[in-house]
């Protein structure tokens, strides 16, 4: 794609408060998966998050491309060894966590930020495969709301300094979306899967 210009020439993609919020919300979306993840993946995910925070705090460069590739291949191989597959519920969510963690180290363009947000939505939604309690529904609805607030800030060419600036608008959007969701929920065709 486009040549990756050094971040220093364009300034940081996101302000430090926005990036910190992004890290926290990604962690929020991934956290309920934690008890089922292998220990090494947890270490990798937390490590990537801390690395990203530290790099942003100090204005350091992100790790080079070959290291990210190595970590990606390594994580995928590890998950395969663990589960004997990359598809299915458990390896699938583990893979999502690994992808989100490694994407943290690759936020060069605005598109990368978007990918991370979408991974956040996927992480939140897949939690319903394990837990459908009322508490979890509330927790994940809040996570989805927070991701939407952040999406409003992160896509802007000049993001506002305060990541919560459009919080009320995200609430409005979600409330306005609920009736549409109910219609879709009732009328959208569902393909029956025969097992």
């Amino acid at each position, binding site marked *: 794609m486009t040549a990756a210009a050094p971040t220093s020439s364009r300034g940081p993609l996101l302000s430090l408060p926005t990036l910190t919020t992004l890290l926290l919300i990604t962690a929020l979306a991934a956290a309920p998966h934690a008890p089922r993840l292998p220990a090494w993946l947890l270490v990798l995910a937390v490590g990537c998050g801390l690395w990203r925070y530290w790099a942003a705090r100090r204005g350091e460069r992100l790790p080079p491309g070959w290291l990210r590739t190595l970590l990606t291949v390594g994580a995928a191989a590890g998950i395969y060894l663990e589960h004997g597959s990359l598809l299915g519920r458990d390896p699938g969510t583990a893979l999502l966590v690994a992808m989100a963690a490694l994407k943290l180290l690759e936020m060069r363009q605005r598109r990368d930020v978007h990918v991370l947000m979408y991974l956040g939505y996927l992480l*939140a939604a897949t939690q319903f495969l394990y837990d459908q309690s009322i508490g979890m529904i509330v927790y994940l609805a809040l996570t989805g709301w927070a991701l939407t607030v952040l999406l409003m800030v992160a896509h802007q060419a000049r993001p506002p300094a305060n990541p919560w600036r459009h919080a009320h608008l995200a609430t409005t959007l979600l409330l306005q979306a609920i009736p*549409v969701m109910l219609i879709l929920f009732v009328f959208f065709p569902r393909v029956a899967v025969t097992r």
Partner: protein
Amino acid sequence: MTAATSVLRRQAQRWGLRLGRRLATPATLVYRGIYVLPTRNGLMFAGMLFVLWLTAINYGNNLIFAFTFLLASVALVSILHTFRNLRGLQVTALPPEPVFVGETAVFPLQLRNDSSVARPAVGLELERTLIDLTDVPARSHAGLLLRRPTLRRGLLQPPAVRIFTIFPLGLFHAWSTLELNQPCLVYPAPETGPVPLPAGASSGGKRQGRSGQDDFQELRRYRPGDSPRHVAWRVVARGQDPQTKVFGGENLMPIWLDWNRLATLPKEARIARLCRWVLDAEASGQRYGLRLPGQEIAPGSGAEHRHRCLQALALLP
């Protein structure tokens, strides 16, 4: 057969016309002038929803269905918000300041928001490149700037631009194409190097050794553009209307900057020299007139006069 194709073509033309619809400034962005399409991020979002939908089907999970449909609905509702972020916005192209060839022409746009809702992240886009971006607060206005290089003297017409927004979620891109009806006047580039001014009309003699400030004649009302050195500051200090000192020397000996006396030079070189002379004459506080083919600007001085002379030079065919 041919009738059918011509109908089709006419239809396509109508479509092309509709899609290419441009608003001329000053314009209010109206319903029919705003277009909305998904952004690349919007398509990616749709891809994510598809993955979620497949997951929901595969596991027959109603909560994932609900989550997927909620996100899809948020995206759908966001189209209206994106649209509303532009609709009713009033865009005016303000007259740009004249510049010299080689300088950057700056075309200012004013965005007026009469509604009670702020419009964040409204941008200006040219050939799909972001030029400028601003927030327009409620019941207020904001500005956007389009910068263009200048290569030729004369009137520089700004290109058609897009006012756009992808707020709030960045999934949809709404835009209006605008013709900016305010060209920028581009003065010619002045000649560089030592180019002495031509002698006054009465061919020197008395000019030597006269600073042009000796023969005080009278006071007249201050006019914008008068040299500050000639303002009667004592009058101003007394609290009266500012007056300008008029000197006899100035009135007596205007310089004529004459096109026909530069017959040896090619056309653009003449223009460059006359331009330089206008600037120099103005800077030294003298009165000067300009003779060009088919027009003559009577002697005068001040910013207004300088502008008239430079404009005449810029607009020479």
